[in-house]
């Protein structure tokens, strides 16, 4: 293989440091320490690969508040009745037992980059040599007029996996005959670009079976969206007349909600709704902001290793990062985590650092056995993670192809969750 300059410098600098003064890296304690905050597709993956590949040379601590992690990816399939909620839950026992990761179920509430410590809600402090933040998303306050996190029971966002997803499903199932489901879609950039539209498909699937005269309205601040042609073709084929998508051209961005009255007002027109899914504008998980590595809503990172522009010892993965061309997705976070693990391990132990390669594929389900996908590969440039090549499912594909695409997505779910937790 060819070694580029960055790799050569990276690994040789790390090797020299570890030969001449391991104390500089390990700061007087034994093994180098990595703290990972967030146990999702980015965090669980980076923790596992660091522990597995360093074979015990690195002390890895994973901080994740929930004991059972419910994936946000595939949560729409739960809404559609294709998965049970239990299918989406994963625990951290294997990461602890098989890979020796110190799994701490607590919230990280502060990061002191000068003393290189993380403070937990329980009060204890975790020192680190390298810190990896993979905290997913939080919502921008005041992004949708009338909605706040206090209203998330009346109008769920269901954009973090778990209880919110279950709540939204219950509300869809409880809709009166011929009732109205509304969605407020988010502006770019946001987690899982096709997610809101797959969700519309899944809600339509459930309503078609249980409540076929019900209506779906989508208020969207965008004038176009991911896989739009595929979704709109699918809605016309499977759910004719049910879905009314109102893009920004028709006032979809001029929206407010009233969670007490259960109304939504789109471009001045008020509608009574029976279930309302508000997906507000997003920003990096709060801990990234507290760590002082964000600029605006997101944390800018270097493409070669996912280190932040603000601090070479702090890395940000997945949805919270501002990296360039990759969509915010579980697949992307998992891909970035592997590049990051390789670079962090190289920096701490002098192991060989290979060039960054990234990829992403997003599958979406439109109806039973009607799956579509979009994907791309990426490389690290000096400016950003840049797209190399990509593909998307075609409109008008035959049913065998669509069925195979759905089956492939199930295979991917099994694969990525085994890669993260197993």
């Amino acid at each position, binding site marked *: 293989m060819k070694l580029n300059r960055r790799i050569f410098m990276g690994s040789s600098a790390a090797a020299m440091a570890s030969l001449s003064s391991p104390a500089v890296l390990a700061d007087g304690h034994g093994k180098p320490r990595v703290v990972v905050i967030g146990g999702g597709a980015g965090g669980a993956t980076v923790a596992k690969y660091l522990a597995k590949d360093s074979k015990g040379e690195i002390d890895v601590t994973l901080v994740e508040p929930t004991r059972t992690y419910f994936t946000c990816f595939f949560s729409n399939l739960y809404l559609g009745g294709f998965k049970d909620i239990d299918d989406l839950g994963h625990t951290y026992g294997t990461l602890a037992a098989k890979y020796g990761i110190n799994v701490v179920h607590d919230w990280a509430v502060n990061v002191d980059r000068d003393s290189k410590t993380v403070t937990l809600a329980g009060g204890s402090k975790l020192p680190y040599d390298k810190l990896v933040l993979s905290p997913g998303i939080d919502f921008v306050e005041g992004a949708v007029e009338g909605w706040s996190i206090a209203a998330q029971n009346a109008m769920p966002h269901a954009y973090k996996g778990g209880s919110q997803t279950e709540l939204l499903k219950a509300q869809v199932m409880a809709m009166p005959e011929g009732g109205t489901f509304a969605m407020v879609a988010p502006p770019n950039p946001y987690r899982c670009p096709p997610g809101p539209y797959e969700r519309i498909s899944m809600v339509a699937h459930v309503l078609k079976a249980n409540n076929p005269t019900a209506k779906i309205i989508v208020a969207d601040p965008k004038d176009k969206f991911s896989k739009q042609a595929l979704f709109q073709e699918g809605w016309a084929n499977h759910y004719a007349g049910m879905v009314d998508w109102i893009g920004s051209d028709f006032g979809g961005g001029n929206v407010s909600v009233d969670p007490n009255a259960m109304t939504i007002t789109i471009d001045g027109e008020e509608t009574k709704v029976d279930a309302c899914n508000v997906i507000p504008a997003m920003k990096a998980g709060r801990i990234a902001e507290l760590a002082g590595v964000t600029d605006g809503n997101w944390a800018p990172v270097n493409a070669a290793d996912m280190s932040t522009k603000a601090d070479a010892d702090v890395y940000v993965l997945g949805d919270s990062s501002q990296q360039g061309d990759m969509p915010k997705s579980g697949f992307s976070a998992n891909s970035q985590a592997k590049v990051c693990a390789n670079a962090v391990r190289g920096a701490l132990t002098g192991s060989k650092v*290979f060039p960054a390669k990234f990829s992403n594929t997003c599958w979406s389900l439109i109806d039973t056995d009607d799956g579509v996908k979009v994907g791309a*590969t990426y490389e690290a440039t000096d400016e950003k993670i840049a797209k190399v090549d990509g593909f998307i499912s075609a409109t008008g594909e035959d049913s065998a192809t669509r069925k195979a695409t759905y089956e492939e997505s199930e*295979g991917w779910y099994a*694969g990525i969750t*085994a890669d993260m937790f197993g």
Partner: protein
Amino acid sequence: MRSTPFLKSALAASFVAGASLAEEIGDADAGETLFSKCKGCHQIGASAEDRIGPHLNGIFGRRAGAHEGFAYSKSMQRAGVDGLTWTAETLDAYIENPRALVSKTRMSFRGIKNPDDRANLMAYLRDFSDNPSNLPEAEPTARATDHDLDPEILALQGDPEYGEYLSNECLTCHQADGSAEGIPSITQWPEEDFVVAMHAYKRKLRPHPVMQMMAGRLNNDEIAALAAYFKDLD
């Protein structure tokens, strides 16, 4: 059938354009003699029936694994679902090295390495497909081409350590323990099969879009490294 409309229009166009410079893709009589290698399993002609292999009437333009009533291997069914259709180009590659195109095909046949022999055989098969006269006489893909991998590529010794790093990307979908649930297993393949299959994706002979994209940006050394790593993974 995703590729059929395209195929038909391409054929129609090339028939008109190519009629005057018609050029036989091969010698069907010589192909008939060669077909004796296939006869143990495949029948062709008026009374042909499915035997160990499916009958080969109308093979040109047929989706792989799609002939009703024949029990194909899972691998062949998957290839068909992924979009593999039998054209002169894909048949040529398949006859040359069946496993390059369909990893676990039940067709236990070593392949025909000589491109002229393959061209002759295809000329014979073509006589039993619909509208053989409409098949592209002069279309470039109708010519047998050398799909065989350069022996130097096959001889490359992969670096398993690099392969392990590169494999991380594969393991987002393909499982390290070899489970095959919706997505095939890629562990413990003979290195040559792995390399040949990845190059078939890279050349877009194998149809799957994700794999074409992933293989498309791997260089020869990287493919060799992955093959070296995965062959021992269990």
